[in-house]
């Protein structure tokens, strides 16, 4: 390694370490070209260490000799995809047979920003959507949600079963940006909803509805899951029927009785 390169590395490493010591915050690629390049470079370093064994050099993907895909290509993944997978902890995956599920993220926010920037340079995949909830129409979002999302995620957003052990996750764990990114990316089994299927306004609306579903109105009392008849049946039997049987037993017991002799 040349000393020039070493110096370059140091110039990158020092500010990174310095910022890491301060309160973490999400770093967006700065306007300046230098900041961009540094971020991308940092991302590439992290990528080579943590991701390339499955996703290949330069994100080309890795196919084993048996023809199995150990890691798909990231060329069309885009920033949105990297952001989604990394900030929900679905990636990195310990082994490629595993089904990705939400976990504690392995990287902190700045590392994620760096990786996101790097993956974004690999192709022209979707950018991280810019979610604006202020003017969003939650009722319109509800209609979009019920038309496109509830079949997998259920009407209350509590998730649902898919084939062969996969599942559509519950939505209450996701931040608005994560939801929006997932919609554009179509991670895992999720289909892809591009801008020609759901416009950016539509996306804001549906994200606002998903936000609403995290704490919906429950005027009826304890929501017991909001998923419908299954918890309701449990309550009917385990609360209602049990209470009634206890009352019946109480009423039916008799004080000491004089029994008639035959």
């Amino acid at each position, binding site marked *: 390694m040349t000393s020039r390169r070493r110096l370059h590395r140091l110039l990158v490493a020092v500010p990174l370490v310095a910022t890491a010591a301060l309160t973490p915050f999400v770093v967006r690629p700065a306007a300046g070209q230098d900041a961009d390049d540094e971020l991308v470079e940092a991302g590439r370093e992290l990528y080579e260490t943590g991701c390339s064994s499955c996703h290949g050099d330069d994100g080309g993907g890795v196919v084993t000799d048996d023809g199995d895909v150990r890691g798909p290509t990231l060329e069309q993944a885009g920033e949105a995809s990297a952001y989604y997978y990394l900030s929900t902890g679905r990636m990195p995956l310990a082994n490629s047979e595993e089904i990705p599920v939400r976990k504690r993220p392995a990287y902190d926010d700045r590392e994620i920003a760096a990786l996101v920037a790097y993956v974004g340079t690999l192709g022209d995949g979707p950018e991280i959507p810019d979610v604006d909830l202020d003017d969003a129409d*939650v*009722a319109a*979002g*509800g*209609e979009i949600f*019920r*038309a496109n999302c*509830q*079949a*997998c*995620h*259920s*009407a*209350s957003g*509590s*998730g*649902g*079963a*898919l*084939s*062969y*052990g996969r*599942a*559509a996750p519950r939505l209450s764990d996701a931040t608005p940006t994560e939801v929006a990114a997932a919609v554009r990316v179509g991670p895992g089994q999720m289909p892809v909803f591009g801008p020609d299927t759901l416009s950016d306004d539509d996306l804001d609306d549906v994200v606002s*509805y998903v936000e*609403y579903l995290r704490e*919906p*109105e*429950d*005027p*009826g*009392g*304890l*929501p*017991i899951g*909001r*998923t*419908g*008849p*299954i918890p*309701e*049946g449990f*309550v*009917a*039997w385990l*609360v*209602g*029927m049990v*209470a*009634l*049987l206890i*009352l*019946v037993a109480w*009423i*039916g*017991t008799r004080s000491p009785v004089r*029994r*008639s*002799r*035959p």
Partner: protein
Amino acid sequence: MSEVSDVSARRRGPRPERLLTHRIARWVDTRLGTAKLARTALNKVFPDHWSFMLGELGLYSFIVLVLTGVYLTFFFDPSSNLVVYDGSYEPLRGVQMTEAYHSALELSFDVRAGLVMRQIHHWAALLFLAAIAVHLARVFFTGAFRRPREINWIIGCTLLILALLNGLFGYSLLDDQLSGTGLRIVYSITLSIPLAGTWLASLLFGGEFPGPDIIERLYVLHILLVPVAIAVLLTAHLAIVVHQKHTQFPGPGRREDNVVGERMWPTYAAKALGLFFLTSAVLAFLGGVFQINPIWIYGPFDPAQVSAASQPDWYMGWLDGALRIMPGWEVRAGGFETPNPFFPGVLLAGITFALLYAWPFLEARVTGDYAEHNLLDRPRQRPVRTALGAATISFYTVSFIAGGSDVLAATFGLSVNAVLWTFRFAVLLAPLVVGWVTYQLCKELSARDGLPTASPVAVREIPGRLRRGAPPTPPDAPEAAAGR
């Protein structure tokens, strides 16, 4: 007037309200001659055992259903006309929906006490059927359906079916996404009936699904036809119990030709009234504290949409589960077919209820016991019946749990395919295991308690042939004179 002064003289002092009620009672009696009948009623003896009160739970739930239901009818609008929502629930503002769904939302958000009435009504429906189920089980396992009570058994099975249907119709009235999906399945099951299916479905729904008429028709069924049928049959059911006198467990002083217990007045009547208030209290508590059927989350029905985790109310769960675990078999020949939903949806359901209705007659034929029975069996003394009953319950329980396979899989991180395969085997194996274990348990418990058991179907002793013969009767029960 002299009669009144007689009464007051006996009372040793004026008690105005007693005087008035006596005057009223006397007035009614001079028009209807009720004294004898009323006295009979007061002195009616009811055996008391807690398990005899389970049917009452159903009766009281039905009364609550009618009372809350009447309130709801003043606000609900069973119309399929489309309107745009402009009420107080923001996430649905501007959304197009039927007037039926709209009125249900109004009831829930904008009518005072509307939501609690709706919720009490729905919880009461769930408990109505739960009460029927435990009451049916009690009657079955104690053999209370035997002569002379076969008629009441038939009436009871009919009440079960009517209650089931009315629950289905009731929650489908609201035209929300979840219940509309259920109606779609009802339509498809009807369609699957060979020869007549397409006609039946068209006549029922007024055309192809969903059609513009179904909500209005369900309304008529739900608030008028079925409740009247239930009320009439319930009255007959109770009248027959009173006329035949309730059965009783064997015990000291209890014989086939007497009934030992409490008199109706005042104790039994007071306890019954108290249970009514307590049942209503439980229902009111559930209705206020536990949210049920949050239709605003489900959204209005759209035939092109569906939610994950769509299940019917618990009492239809066995049918839903049967539909899921049924493998993809159909019968096709010459361009005609019997589609898949027919087998679990129509055939299984039909066989279920046919067996239920026929049971008293089947059992009498197999055991050769056509005698009158007013003394109940302890379940452990009838191992075959108890085992068969337990096996049947386990069959429907497995089917019921299978109805929630997707929720089970998602909750426990399992493969829904594996879960369904497991239930396909479990639904056949569980009844065998449960039946066998129950049989052994009955024999064990009877032996331990020194009780005789009646196993008239001696399966092991005479393989391949059912032996006719009356079971050994309890020691102090005389041979019924009207037997055969």
